[in-house]
């Protein structure tokens, strides 16, 4: 009888767990090379590779969709079983998502032309200069809150050309993205002056996602750091 009860309990638990785990997650991201690159299927890139690996290891079905960031934000707030990445985790957003963090630790730098007369030692040295960045980025919010002269474009890629044409003094960009775009466009007259901010990027899931699933993803992410998986993925894109 005791064995039977145990068997039933395990059986019922299995049903419960499998029904909890059966959902297909919608994972939203924006196109942001080299973190997410549109391609055949669900795309590639450092953050897409990390998140794909994470869900596969957790045993959850998922679908990655690349959409504009603002739409991704809207959908992730309203739709159950939906997550967005790579999202900057901050105080204002803390209560609005379940957080699996960090899937990435990124850095933002100031880039100028090599022949620029401006020397940037601290972030304060960029005061009074025209800084280019793109819409919806954490960089734009951060610099605007400090009162910098920020010019925002819909996408980041045009900023590198604006910098080369002296239409902006400084380009504030993610360090991996800046290198990727400089290589892609064969830009050599550009220098990294100051890497001024580090950001924890998270997978942010709708608050209706079950706590048990969130905890499973958190455990798997930690293992991916300790076994070197994250480092290996990032190094492919450096």
């Amino acid at each position, binding site marked *: 009888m005791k064995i039977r009860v145990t068997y039933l309990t395990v059986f019922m638990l299995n049903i419960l767990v499998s029904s909890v785990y059966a959902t297909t997650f919608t994972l939203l991201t924006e196109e942001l090379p080299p973190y997410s690159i549109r391609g055949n299927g669900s795309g590639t890139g450092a953050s897409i590779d990390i998140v794909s690996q994470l869900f596969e290891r957790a045993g959850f079905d998922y679908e990655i969709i690349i959409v504009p960031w603002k739409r991704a934000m809207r959908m992730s707030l309203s739709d159950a079983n939906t997550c967005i990445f790579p999202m900057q985790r901050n*105080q204002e957003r803390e209560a609005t998502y379940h957080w699996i*963090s960090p899937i990435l630790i990124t850095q933002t730098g100031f880039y100028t032309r090599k022949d620029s007369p401006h020397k940037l030692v*601290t972030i304060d040295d960029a005061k009074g200069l025209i800084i280019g960045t793109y819409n919806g980025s954490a960089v734009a919010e951060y610099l605007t809150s400090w009162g910098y002269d920020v010019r925002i474009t819909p996408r980041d890629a045009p900023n590198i050309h604006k910098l080369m044409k002296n239409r902006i003094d400084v380009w504030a960009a993610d360090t991996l993205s800046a290198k990727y775009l400089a290589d892609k466009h064969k830009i050599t007259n550009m220098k990294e002056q100051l890497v001024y901010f*580090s950001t924890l990027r998270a997978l942010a899931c709708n608050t209706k996602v079950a706590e048990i699933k969130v905890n499973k993803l958190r455990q798997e992410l*930690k293992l991916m*750091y*300790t076994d070197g998986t994250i480092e290996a993925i990032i190094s492919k894109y450096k």
Partner: protein
Amino acid sequence: MVYQEKRQCLARKRHRVSKLTLFLCASILSTPCMADMLAAEKWINNEFKESTLTKEQQMKEMQWFINAARPFKGMTIRVVSERIDTHVYEAKVLAKAFQEITGIKLVHEITGEDDVVKKIATQIELDYSIYDAYINDSDFIGTHYRSGKVVSLTDFMAGEGKEVTLPSLDLEDFIGLSFTTGPDGKLYQLPDQQFANLYWYRADWFDRADFKASFKKLYGYELGVPQNWSAYEDIAEFFTIHVKTIDGKKIYGHMDYGKKDPSLGWRFSDAWLSMAGAGDKGIPNGLPVDEWGIRVEDCHPVGASVSRGGALNGPAAVYAITKFIEWLNKFAPPEAKSMNFSQAGAVPGQGTIAQQIFWYTAFTAALTDPKLPVMNSDGVPKWRMAPSPRGPYWEKGMKLGYQDTGSWTFMTSTPLKNRKAAWLYAQFVTSKTVSLQKMLIGLTPIRNSDIMSDKMTKVAYKYGGLIEFYRSKARVAWTPTGSNVPDYPGLSDLWWKNISLAVNGQLSPQEAMNKMAAEMDERLMALEQKGQERCAPRMNPQKDESYWLNQPGAPKAKLANEKPQGVTLPYESALEAWN
């Protein structure tokens, strides 16, 4: 090589170089030299003019930094801190000075306090080096001490960091070392800035004869600095309900904030329960029960709920939450309920608030802006800060408020060379060469010598009582979260998540605190199972609450009268009462 360096030094005589720089440079042959000393002299002459050291002593201190930094020249060091005036000054000015003087490239990042917490928690959990040092609140002392992931500065200064430890650091001069020392007596963090949480009020309104007369007529005692919560409540009611308007403008007798947001948690974790009197006697945090309501035995947390000997859901805690909600609803501006910490911080400066029981002195600089309606034309504030009133459960010998002590914190996962270079920067921004000027900018004192300096005596009138508070004995009763809390980042979210339920009326204060205490116990139990490097929780078994409520100290039984007679004092007497 040394000879050549010396020649190069002396060759710069044609530049405008002081005799002192020349003397120091020429007499110390190993100094690399002159450019760095010139940079140091430039900074001392132009920026660090206010110091408790003489210029000669400042130059010698800088000379030590130049020498000690030689092995690290050209390295990039990355540190992070929260966004307050003091740290902004460090990031914009002191980082640049350090770089010019030592040749170490220093990136001092500024971000939200919550982000600093997430980052340090990530580095602790993953052993993944993100920064070379953090300016992290000493509220983490219990976490750091137990984690085994934070460098003991006592050991570091005596061992591998000996040659990079400033001889004139003068640790005895720091006022906050007891907050950053673990139960093992070792220093784990070095204070960088401190600010307290005090009572704030409009001294000009409190001095008005008509208000004094009508207050006395209504309540039977003098309008003055409230010494207990009864008086605070009466004054709040007086201004919001009876005075109502001044010069045609609606005014309020209380200000606070209640939005569901992580900053709501600080309102409580920053010692609100201790102000009501929920914890035990004992400085800095109350033993065996602290201001979070956590009981410790032999450094091991044993429970937060009353049934395990804690005080988180005891009568004093429930009283504290009840009064917070009642005052917010009855006496504060209606919009306060939907504000967070940052939004609420600016409101007293707008000139419609008579008093605020929970006010961070970090706002001092912002509230002395001459353009604000709370400033007189002669640069003297119309407001004052004073020691906070205490709740009915408070007893002499207990802490009475919170002090934030942002402190330099070094992780074992940081490479040693980076850690040493970052330690040099930490000592630079807290050195006597720099600290008085930094205090004048940010008003967040860390050194007794600065607080007692002639300069601060001359300028004290500008700061509404800040200097007087830090010179009084009262300051020892204002302390950060202590070592009872074994995992600050892992436990602190419980405050805002649960108290917001009571603020929004979804649960009663008692229900919310019962839920929170149960969740705190669960997390402490999880820590017990997981284990910590030292002093991990060892939870008490549950007992009938009456057992613990009948023991001396916390948790304390419900008082028959939670509103004793209100007591007030004139401003000067309110400070003298602590001496």
